[in-house]
């Protein structure tokens, strides 16, 4: 075959292959701000609302599971989120730690199921609800350090930026698009890097001082954008 023909033919072939691949795989509609992820079926239907939900003022003993939660701090179970880039899933031991002494629900089907795993010393095969592509390195620890530890925001608010209002959910469901554009909507905003009165928020002011120009509003609160270097997430 003529050499000069070989290359264009291959190119056309490849283009056809790629475009037909794209045509057969329709893109999911680009999610809007609050588009939900799919409803995921879990081996045990874990009720987030029961654990993290607000107490029912009318039921101070918290006796009716359908009506109120226990306001457990997210970090009590999701303890790895503040210590590692990945949040992980709490070990089964954690569930059992409490539930072995909660006799009142011991015979409920979900708890019976839970103890079956424990007795067999088998891990619960939870399904991933929030799955980022492998080329994205989201760091839980950094976000918790900044919002919860440095800025002292409520835990549920901080987690909720990405995970939505978990205290209202039973099985967790993705609440945000988690696309790069969506991440950038936060990272492009000006955030206060000093608290009122000009006190730097931990090491942040130092870090942000490298980013010029730094916005300053009337109350003399210094503001800057969140980290927006590519490598922050794409390492």
């Amino acid at each position, binding site marked *: 075959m003529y050499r000069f023909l070989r290359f264009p033919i291959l190119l056309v072939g*490849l283009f056809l292959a*790629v475009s037909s691949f794209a045509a057969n795989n329709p893109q999911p509609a680009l999610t809007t701000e609050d588009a939900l*992820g*799919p409803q*995921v079926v879990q081996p045990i239907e874990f009720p987030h609302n029961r654990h993290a939900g607000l107490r029912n003022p009318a039921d101070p003993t918290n006796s009716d599971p359908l009506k109120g939660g226990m306001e457990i701090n997210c970090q009590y179970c999701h303890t790895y989120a503040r210590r590692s880039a990945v949040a*992980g*899933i*709490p070990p089964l031991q954690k569930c059992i730690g409490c539930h072995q002494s909660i006799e009142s629900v011991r015979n409920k089907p979900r708890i019976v199921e839970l103890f079956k795993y424990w007795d067999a010393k088998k891990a619960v095969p939870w399904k991933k609800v929030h799955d980022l592509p492998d080329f994205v390195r989201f760091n839980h620890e950094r976000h918790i350090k900044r919002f919860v530890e440095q800025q002292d925001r409520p835990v549920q608010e901080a987690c909720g930026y990405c995970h939505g209002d978990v205290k209202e959910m039973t099985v967790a469901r993705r609440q945000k698009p988690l*696309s790069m554009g969506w991440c950038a909507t936060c990272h492009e905003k000006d955030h206060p890097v000093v608290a009122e009165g000009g006190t730097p928020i931990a090491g942040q002011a130092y870090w942000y001082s490298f980013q010029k120009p730094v916005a300053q509003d009337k109350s003399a609160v210094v503001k800057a954008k969140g980290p927006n270097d590519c490598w922050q997430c794409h390492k």
Partner: protein
Amino acid sequence: MIDSGFDRRDFLKVLGWSGAAVALSGCGNTSIEDGKETVVSYVEANDYMIPGIGVYFNSTCAQCDAGCSINGRVREGRVLKLEGNPDSAINKGKLCALGQAGVQHHYNPDRVREPLLRNGSKGETITWEKAYALIAEKLSGVQGEEIAFLSGGVSGHLKALLGNYLESLGTKNHFVYEAVAPGVTRAANVKAYGVDMPRYRFDKAQVVLSFGADFLGSWVSPVHFSQQYAQFRKGVNGQRGVLIQVESKMTLTGANADRWLAVKPGTEGVLALGIINALGMATGDVAELVKGYDKARVSHETGVSPGQIDKIAALLKLRSPSLVLAGSAAEGYAHGSQNAAAINLLNQVLGNVGKTIEAPVSVPFPQMAPSKGNTAALKLLNDGLAAGKYKVLFNFAANPVFTAPGAFKFKDHLSKAGFKVAFAHYLDETALQADLVLPLDSALEDWGTQVPEYMTEGAQINIQQPLMERLHANTRGMGDILLNLIKQKKADEYKGFEDYYAYLRGAMLQNKGALGGGGTDDDTFWNTTLTQGIVKLAGTAGALSAHVGAAGLTLPAHAAADEQYPLHLIPGVTANLRDGRHTNQPWLQESPDPLTTIVWDSWVEVHPKKATELGIVEGDIVEVTSKTGSVKAQVYLFPGIHPEAISIPVGRGHDAMGRYARGYGVNPFQIMDAVFERETGELAMHETRVNIKKTGQRVLVVKDEGSAGALQMGRKIAARVSTDQVDLSKEV
């Protein structure tokens, strides 16, 4: 090899375009697959186990016998990466490429996962209970001398346990076989120094003269030697050490040398005696011996010019101490012992013994010292098999069907053994011939201890411990298997040990005092031992014999060339593949050979001059024929090989073992003649003579070298001069 046709440049262009197309179609969040993947949590987690954060455990590299200590990163219960353990005096935190590939041994998709019993040409899965019962059944009524156990080098507690098992069977037939081992050098060392492997002090030497010892690549303890070499290059008092490498095929070490000399294959000993003569330092019978080796004769026989011999002698005189090494290239001939003896004699004449050659230390537990062996042991077994002597044969950590020289006809003889049991990681060539295959744990799942042959400062016992849980439910550690087997014979004696772990712990605690744990309680001692991964011992240093003599040293007269087979076949032992037991690890196939940059294939190194003479160009497929057989492979033109020799690397050419090994390259062991070293009876690996013929086929050699690599296209990126333009006495 790929057939030429489609140009690499075109291919890259197209790849670029299609890559862009894929990238465009990949916009948006298509990669998010909520609810599809399982995220498995721990059932119980220790405090230090945090998802996403690595935990490090110490263990020992099992890819070769050098005994480097490893430090493995474990995350979410999976071992991800191995590095060297800095506390080990052997590798001081470093690891060679072969060691790095250890994770691919562990995760290898082709590992044997279930005990398999032969049923015709197929393997049938059976339970372990049945496998043990079957072994007991086959052993019953069989005499001790009808049982043979073939293994690679074993050491530590496993060796002790194996010894006890063989004793309980009443057999003395333990054949230790390492296909690539310095068997002849060991024997020559015993004669010259009184020990089989002295401690070499590269760091104290000012000149290293190595006769084919590839100490940076594949010889004895390459990671350790590389570090010593770095010291040597830094030099004493700022004076950089000089490395001279003498060999017929350039090795990795040769490529690093200041001066590389190609000698006629097999004449290393002649050159050594010639240098002794040129030094003029010898007295007595040594002087008498070397008298005849004047420059003219030596130069004629070895092909090294008289000027070079003078320069080497001048340098050795000027700089002392030096270190002279006899490597596999010198020992691989029928007169290998004599070659090595001549080279060791040069060391003695130079007064290096005691300075750069020191007495080694050994562990104070001789029953744990490594068992060593080379092809002489295999020959013995092979003869026994041929005579139909064995009713039961065990095989562990050796693959003789692949590595035995073709002339042994090992595979045919093997079939005469009654019942063959293979303890195996892969279904390699030998396991495929077995009647019963028992799957082994990987080195990263198993318990053990290892004692290296080559010790450095002080002695050490290396600990091997699991870095993670078993990947496959039905593999077992070799120790556990042996323990189970020995219980069939000596139930009472071993009933206290539930498993090999218990045996190991018990044995270590019993000797706590001697292992440096006197005064600590058992748990503390054991935990410290596991944490450190090494038990360091003072060790006992032997003594070197000071005897200098030339008694019995005679080098054969230069043999006339064989008309039918005019070329020497030099089996190349590469740093990555060694004897081919790890060829199924794709990283090793993929990493380019350091000298030729070829990947995933074998090649025949031919000197450009010889190639012109034969009308061969790079990529020609040639047939290499010896008395024993022939193989076909692509030609690579290599100036680093003597024109009278060709070289084919060993390790490739598997026809079993797994998807990354099978069908890639050729196996030069297949065409090796059965020529033996005269004194030790080891296989003379370099003695095979061959001829080469063009087949008419030609391929594109797949290699990294080329416009992207070594060819400088006139750009003078790295300047070079020919070594003949360098006056060695001024340069160094």
